């Protein structure tokens, strides 16, 4: 029988103290106890002899990996020596721990909780006073926040163990998270063990084993699950800030040196008939830049009145015609001791893509037949800035980072939902 590979000794075979079936001990005399995968009998292994314990741990039927499976992690071959299902005593949540053994490296643990995997290694971190500590900073991986404190008991087990697993029942444990990392301690009556883990995705777990294994479906968000982006959120933030700054500078340069508005026509119209419609023809004016936008600024002195304007802008050089319209209305009064007003006596109509040339416009003014509109001033400015384009491009630049930021915020809130130490308020 071959153990991990042909470089290492074969596993030691011992009989189950209850059903007498063969049990493989890959760690030989390092095994302190074992649990039979067939009958569930738990035995303490003392002085090379299995001693039947009074405990009978539930026989394991449903598990993701079989004892004896070889995992190739970081070019090292580990053998799976046990499986433990632990239950948290307060909320009765269950997670699974698979212990991996390498003769030189020692023990690593693959933790499975709601379909999420974390590879856990013994940590060199040690703190003398930690029981009330809510955050821990490690030099290489940064700041860890307290996520949970709990006690557990073993519910199911199979395989060999380097200590008496029932001896650890009801020990105090705590998890500190800094996704994808987790720092945990387990305090028994005699010892404190510190562990450091890293979140592992399903693809990586599958790449470690030769056999095709169906991994459990992920449920919810693990405490140390990283926000799934294939880029750094900090880099996105910096890139967006730099882009916005460049856009603002570009707009400033365009406004200052290129799109410099110039008044090319200013005309004044007044009503001297009783009709509801009349047409005015403007004096000709010159548009001096090709492909520019122009503003038609309308100003009136309406009061409790309205008017509608229909412009036909004619390029006398090319014959091009531009049709556009707008309206003005203004109402004001004094009601219940308060003065109010609605509408405006000013409006700006914009036209784009004007060719260089000589222009005039025909203006059809429609108004209330019972009221005169008084007067209307029309000022034409060429080569005006198109601020709406700037605002739309700015919004386009911000949409993606804002969406990612929103998603991240939702993810974090959801991730901390099950923690008693959440920084978020869920009311």
């Amino acid at each position, binding site marked *: 029988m071959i153990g991990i590979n042909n470089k290492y000794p074969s596993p030691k075979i011992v009989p189950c103290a209850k059903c007498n079936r063969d049990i493989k001990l890959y760690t030989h005399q390092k095994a302190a106890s074992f649990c039979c995968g067939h009958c569930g009998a738990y035995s303490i292994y003392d002085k090379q002899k299995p001693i039947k314990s009074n405990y009978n741990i539930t026989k394991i039927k449903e598990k993701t990996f079989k004892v004896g499976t070889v995992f190739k992690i970081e070019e090292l071959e580990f053998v799976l020596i046990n499986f433990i299902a632990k239950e948290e005593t307060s909320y009765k949540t269950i997670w699974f721990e698979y212990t991996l053994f390498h003769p030189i490296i020692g023990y690593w643990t693959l933790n499975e909780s709601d379909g999420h995997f974390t590879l856990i290694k013994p940590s060199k971190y040690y703190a003398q006073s930690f029981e009330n500590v809510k955050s821990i900073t490690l030099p290489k991986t940064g700041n860890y926040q307290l996520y949970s404190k709990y006690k557990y008991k073993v519910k199911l087990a199979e395989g060999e163990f380097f200590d008496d697993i029932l001896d650890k029942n009801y020990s105090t444990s705590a998890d500190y998270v800094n996704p994808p990392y987790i720092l945990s301690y387990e305090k028994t009556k005699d010892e404190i063990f510190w562990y450091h883990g890293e979140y592992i995705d399903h693809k990586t777990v599958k790449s470690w084993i030769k056999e095709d294994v169906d991994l459990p479906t992920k449920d919810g968000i693990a405490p140390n699950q990283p926000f799934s*982006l*294939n*880029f*750094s959120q900090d*880099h*996105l933030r*910096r*890139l967006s800030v*730099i*882009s916005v700054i*460049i*856009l603002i500078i*570009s707009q400033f340069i*365009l406004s200052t040196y*290129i*799109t410099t508005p110039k008044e090319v026509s200013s005309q004044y119209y007044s009503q001297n008939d009783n009709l509801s419609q009349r047409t005015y023809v403007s004096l000709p004016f010159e548009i001096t830049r090709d*492909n*520019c*936008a122009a503003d038609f600024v309308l100003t009136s002195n309406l009061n409790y009145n309205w008017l509608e304007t*229909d412009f036909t802008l004619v*390029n006398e050089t*090319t*014959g*091009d*015609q*531009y*049709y*556009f*319209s*707008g309206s003005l209305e203004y109402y004001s009064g004094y009601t219940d001791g308060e003065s109010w007003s609605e509408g405006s006596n000013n409006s700006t*109509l*914009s*036209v*784009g*893509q*004007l*060719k260089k040339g000589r222009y005039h416009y025909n203006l059809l003014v429609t108004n209330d037949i019972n009221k005169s509109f008084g007067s209307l001033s029309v000022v034409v400015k060429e*080569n005006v800035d*198109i601020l*709406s*384009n*700037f605002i*739309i*491009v700015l919004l*386009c*630049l911000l949409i*993606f980072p804002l969406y990612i930021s929103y998603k991240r915020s939702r993810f974090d809130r959801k991730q901390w939902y099950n923690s008693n130490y959440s920084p978020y308020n869920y009311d």
Partner: protein
Amino acid sequence: MIENNGITAIIPHIIMINLERVSKIISIKGLKGYVIFISLLFIGYFYLQLNGIFIYNSTSSEHEGGDHSYSNSHHK
């Protein structure tokens, strides 16, 4: 001469350090698609601004005549 050689040797080193710093600040690892989007957005922005074209114009306008026509409203 010795000083000049020293400066000549130091300048590429300084450039390398600064390039590394810049690449750390504006790293585009995993963001190439977004960088392409930003580039296209800027090209479009300059094209529109320099040609007096509105992405959105609150004034309903229509153009007829010459060799082309456009409209951003229903014909009256």
